[in-house]
Every structure is written in structure tokens, then in C-alpha cells.
């Protein structure tokens, strides 16, 4: 399904990357563990319902979700703004966090579709699974995994979504190769992420603390 070493499979080696992928992963996991268990804390980014409004999500869809589905939402854009998902589509949400975008996707594809959220942070997975169960959403499932090694079969997905996750991965080439693997030919990738208009100095790129703060 996927290579043991996703970086090697994508044609990169650790030395080519500005930071060590495993070290960055631990930093990110620590930050988002906090977002999962203490969403009332202060972060350098917006979270929750206010952020969803800011990013232009459909109010009715957000209002219909319970607080645990929304309070830890920490996306940077709206993956559904360029294209609404179609009924019956199979969706993978890369870095699904507490499940906000997965639940929005579930509403768009309906019970004839399927949504698989993938996240590496245990506290986020536990939260998203509790919410899916509380909502009785049998067509939504959350799996533990990495963006560079998705636990999804080749060509399974009609659509891959992601929100504010790929910028936190050291090896973006490996992530896109993995997304391509799980998408069917002709399938859609629709994701939100940040981009900078001014170049970031090389020394800052190597400072792992700056990636998450």
C-alpha cells in the first residue's frame, strides 16, 4: 500500500529537507495535542467557530455540529470553497484533527458516501471518534496515520481534502505523492494551506520552533 520509507519513495532523502521530519512531527503533535485537550488556551492562530466564520464555511452546516466537532478546528482556509463535494463521493481528510472538515464533508457526500479522516495525534483521534459516534455517522471513520503514509488503499478516494496540514510536513513531495496514490485517476485534491509572499530566510527554515509557532 505504501513504502516503509515514504521520503525515499518520493525521491527525497532526509538531508535534502530543511528540518528532520520526525522531529518536526513531534513538535506538531505536541502543539495539536494541546489544541485537542485545551481549546480555550491561547494559540498563535484562531480556532473554533469564530475561525469557521472567518473562513467562510456555510453557517448552517457549522451550527449543526456540536462543540467538540468545532472547538479544536484550526484550519487556514476552506477546502470546500472552490468545489462542493458531490453526493456519494469517497473522501480522505489528511490531518483530520478533531474532525471538523470530515464532518462537513460527511454532510456534503451524504450517507451514500464515505469519509476517512487520518491523523497522527491520539487526542485528536479520540475526540473525532467520540463525535462521530455521538452523531451516529456510520459513513465517517478516523484512522491513525501520517500524511506521508496514509492508511488508505491505492486509488480508493474520489477526493482528498486537507486544511493547514501540508505546510507542517517537512517533505511535501512525499505527501503529494501519497495523496496521488490514494486518489483514483481523475480524482480531486482540494486543500487549504498557507503560503508566504516574502521569502523566509534559510536559517529560519531550519528552526523547527518557527514551523509551529
Amino acid at each position: 500500500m505504501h513504502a516503509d520509507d515514504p521520503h525515499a519513495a518520493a525521491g527525497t532523502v532526509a538531508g535534502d529537507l530543511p528540518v528532520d521530519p520526525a522531529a518536526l512531527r513531534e513538535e506538531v503533535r505536541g502543539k495539536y495535542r494541546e489544541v485537542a485537550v485545551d481549546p480555550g488556551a491561547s494559540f498563535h492562530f484562531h480556532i473554533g467557530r469564530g475561525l469557521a466564520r472567518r473562513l467562510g464555511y456555510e453557517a448552517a452546516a457549522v451550527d449543526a455540529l456540536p462543540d467538540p466537532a468545532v472547538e479544536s478546528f484550526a484550519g487556514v482556509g476552506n477546502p470546500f470553497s472552490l468545489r462542493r463535494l458531490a453526493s456519494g463521493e469517497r473522501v480522505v481528510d489528511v490531518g483530520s484533527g478533531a474532525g471538523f472538515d470530515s464532518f462537513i464533508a460527511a454532510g456534503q457526500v451524504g450517507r451514500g458516501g464515505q469519509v476517512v479522516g487520518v491523523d497522527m495525534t491520539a487526542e485528536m483521534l479520540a475526540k473525532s471518534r467520540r463525535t462521530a459516534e455521538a452523531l451516529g455517522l456510520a459513513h465517517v471513520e478516523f484512522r491513525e496515520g501520517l500524511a506521508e503514509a496514509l492508511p488508505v488503499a491505492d486509488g480508493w478516494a474520489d477526493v482528498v481534502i486537507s486544511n493547514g496540514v501540508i505546510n507542517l510536513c517537512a517533505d511535501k513531495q512525499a505527501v503529494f505523492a501519497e495523496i496521488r496514490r490514494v486518489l483514483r485517476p481523475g480524482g480531486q485534491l482540494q486543500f487549504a494551506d498557507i503560503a508566504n509572499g516574502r521569502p523566509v530566510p534559510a536559517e529560519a527554515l531550519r528552526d523547527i520552533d518557527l514551523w509551529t509557532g
Partner: protein
Amino acid sequence: MLQDSGFTDVVIGAAVDTFGGANGEDKARAFEVYGYTFMATRSVGMSA
């Protein structure tokens, strides 16, 4: 990078002021960081 990874028909949405009013706003302004939505189609061919 998307095209190099085997995606076509790349569309980029309008910039969103993701960090406006947040604690990280100053750092975001320094590097002109904004949120964007991207859409692309997986190419049909085997190679990227």
C-alpha cells in the same frame, strides 16, 4: 510542486487573512502569510 507530483488543472482561490487579529499576526505580516484554497486533478497517467 503540484504539477511535478502528477496533478493537473491547478486552481488557486483568493487569499484569506487567516492570521488577522490572532497572536501570530505580526509574524504572518512579516512574511505576507495568507491562507489559500487549492484544487487540482490527479492525472490519469502512471507517471508524475
